[in-house]
C-alpha cells in the first residue's frame, strides 16, 4: 500500500472513531433542547424549537449556583491544602537525609496503593466523630489527607533538581527557614505545582463516592451529587435530566478548553514520575 493510501485510510478511520466518540455528547446536547414528546418521536434530528425552559428548570432543580459554590469550596480547600502542605513536606523530606525522614517518606508512598474502598468505612466513622461529616469544609480537609501522598511524591522528586546553593545563600542573607521556602523555593516549584493542582482538581471535582458518604444535607451537595439526585428522582423526565447533564459537564469542558495543554502535560508528568 502506498504511503498516501495509508494516510487517507488512517484519517478516515480516526474520523469515524471520533464521530462515534462524540456521538453520545452530541445526542445529549441536541436533545436537551427538545420537549419530551420530540425526544421520543425524533431523537436524531435537530430540535425544531429550542426549549430553553429545560435549562431554567434544571438550573433550579440542581440548585446550580449553590452546587457550584459547594464544589468550588471543596476543590479550593482540598487543592490549596494539598499543594501547600505537600510542597512543604516534600521539600523538607527531600532535603533531610536520614532514617526518620526516609521512614516518613516511605509511609506516604506505601499508602498510595491503598484503595479508597478499603478505608471508606473507618473514614466515615472518623469524619462523624470529628464532626466533619456533612460539611463542605470538612470534605475539603479530608481530600487533603487523602491527596498529600502523591503530591509529596511528586514534589520530593522535583526538589532534587533545584540547587541547594539558592537556599544556602538566602539563609546567609538572614532569611529564616520558612521565609526561604516561601520566597525562594515555592515559586521555583511552579511547574510541578501546576501539574499537581490540575490532577487533583480533576479528581476532587469529579469524585462521587466520598461526597456521597460525607454530605448528608442537600444544601451542601456538590454539583455531581446534585445531578445524581436529580437523575434518581426524575428518572423519565429526559429534557430535565439532559439539560442538567449539560450544565454539569460545561464547567469541566470549559476548563479543558483553557488548560488542555497543561492537563495533558500534567498527566504525562504525573504518570512518568509515578
Amino acid at each position, binding site marked *: 500500500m502506498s504511503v498516501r493510501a495509508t494516510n487517507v485510510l488512517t484519517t478516515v478511520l480516526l474520523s469515524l*472513531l471520533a464521530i462515534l466518540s462524540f456521538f453520545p455528547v452530541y445526542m445529549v446536547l441536541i436533545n436537551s433542547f427538545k420537549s419530551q414528546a420530540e425526544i421520543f418521536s425524533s431523537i*436524531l434530528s435537530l430540535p425544531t424549537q429550542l426549549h430553553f425552559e429545560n435549562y431554567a428548570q434544571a438550573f433550579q432543580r440542581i440548585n446550580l449556583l449553590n452546587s457550584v459554590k459547594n464544589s468550588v469550596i471543596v476543590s479550593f480547600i482540598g487543592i490549596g491544602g494539598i499543594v501547600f502542605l505537600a510542597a512543604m513536606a516534600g521539600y523538607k*523530606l527531600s532535603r533531610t537525609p536520614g532514617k526518620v525522614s526516609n521512614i516518613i517518606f516511605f509511609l506516604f508512598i506505601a499508602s498510595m496503593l491503598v484503595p479508597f474502598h478499603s478505608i471508606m468505612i*473507618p473514614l466515615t466513622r472518623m469524619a462523624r466523630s470529628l464532626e466533619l461529616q456533612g460539611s463542605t469544609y470538612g470534605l475539603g480537609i479530608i481530600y487533603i489527607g487523602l491527596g*498529600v501522598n502523591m503530591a509529596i511524591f511528586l514534589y520530593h522528586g522535583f526538589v532534587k533538581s533545584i540547587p541547594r546553593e539558592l537556599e544556602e545563600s538566602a539563609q546567609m542573607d538572614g532569611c529564616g527557614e520558612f521565609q526561604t521556602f516561601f520566597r525562594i523555593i515555592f515559586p521555583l516549584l511552579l511547574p510541578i505545582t501546576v501539574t499537581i493542582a490540575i490532577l487533583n482538581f480533576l479528581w476532587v471535582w469529579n469524585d462521587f463516592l466520598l461526597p456521597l458518604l460525607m454530605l448528608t444535607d442537600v444544601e451542601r451537595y456538590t454539583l455531581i451529587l446534585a445531578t445524581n439526585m436529580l437523575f434518581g428522582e426524575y428518572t423519565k423526565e*429526559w429534557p430535565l435530566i439532559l439539560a442538567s447533564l449539560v450544565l454539569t459537564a460545561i464547567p469541566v*469542558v470549559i*476548563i479543558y478548553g483553557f488548560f488542555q495543554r497543561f492537563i495533558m502535560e500534567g498527566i504525562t508528568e504525573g*504518570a512518568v514520575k509515578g
Partner: protein
Amino acid sequence: MLQSGYKKYMSLLAFVGPAFILYFIFLMLPTLGGMYYSITDWNGLNRDYEFIGFGNFVEALREDPDFIKSLLFTMKYVIVMVVLQNVFALFLAVLIESKMRSKGFFRTIFFMPNMISMIISAFIWTFVFTQVLPQLAQMTSLLSFLDQSWLGDPNISFFSIILVSLWNGVGYMMIIYLAGLQGVPQSLKEAAIIDGANPFQSFFHITLPMITHAITICLFLTLNGAFKVFDTVYGLTGGGPGRSTQVITMNIYEEAFSNNFRYGYASAKSVILFVIILIFTFIQVSVMKKREVES
C-alpha cells in the same frame, strides 16, 4: 551546613507535621482501622463488638455466594478492561502520532470524555442505551441489532459497562502512550524501513520495545483502576438486575451502608480487595520491570 540534631528534627516537624497529621488521621488510621475491624463482628448498630478472628474472611470466601459472584464479575471486568483499554489507547496513539496537521484535533476529541466525571458519563450513556439506540433500531432494519436490553440483560450489560468504561478511560492512557511514542527516535524507524521492515515489523520490533516504560505505567493504572470500578456500574445498572452486575466495591458498599451495616464483615471484604490488588500489582510490576531491563 551543620544543624544540631534537635534543630533538625524541629524543622522537619514544622514542615512535614501538618501534612502528616492529616494523612495520619484520614488515611493511615482508617487503613489500620479497617484491618482491625475486619477481625471483629462490629456492626453499626451496636456499641460493643467482639473479636472473632478470621471468621469474617471464612464467611466471605465460603458462605457468601453474592460476594464470590461479585469477585468473579470484577475479575472478568478487570481482564477485559486491562486488555482492551491498552490495546485501544495504543492503537489510537499510533494512528494519531502518524498525523501531522490533525494530531491536535484528534487528541482533543478522544481525550474529552475523560474530563467528564464517570458518574455523569454513565448517565449520558444511560440515555444512549435506553432511548437513542432503540430508536435507531426502529429506523432501518439494518440497525435492528441495536434493539437490545443494553442495561437490563446481565450478559449484554457487561459489554455496556465495558463500553462506557472504555469511552471514559481510553483517552487518559492514549495521552501517556502518545508521550511514549514521541520518545521513539525517528531515525530508528527510518533505519528499519530502509532495512526492509514492513510497518508491522517496525511497530513490534522497534516501537513496542522502546515504549515498555509507558506500557508498564498504563498497565499499572488500568489494573488498579479496574479493580476499583464503582461509579460507572452504579450509574448504569446499579449492580442489577438483581445483583448480576455487582462489582466487588459495590458489594462492600452495600454490606456497609445500605444493607445490614455489618461494618466488621464489610471491612474484611475490603481487606480482601486490598490484598488482591496488592498481589496483582506486585506481579505486574515485577514482570514488567524485568522486561524493561531486558529491552
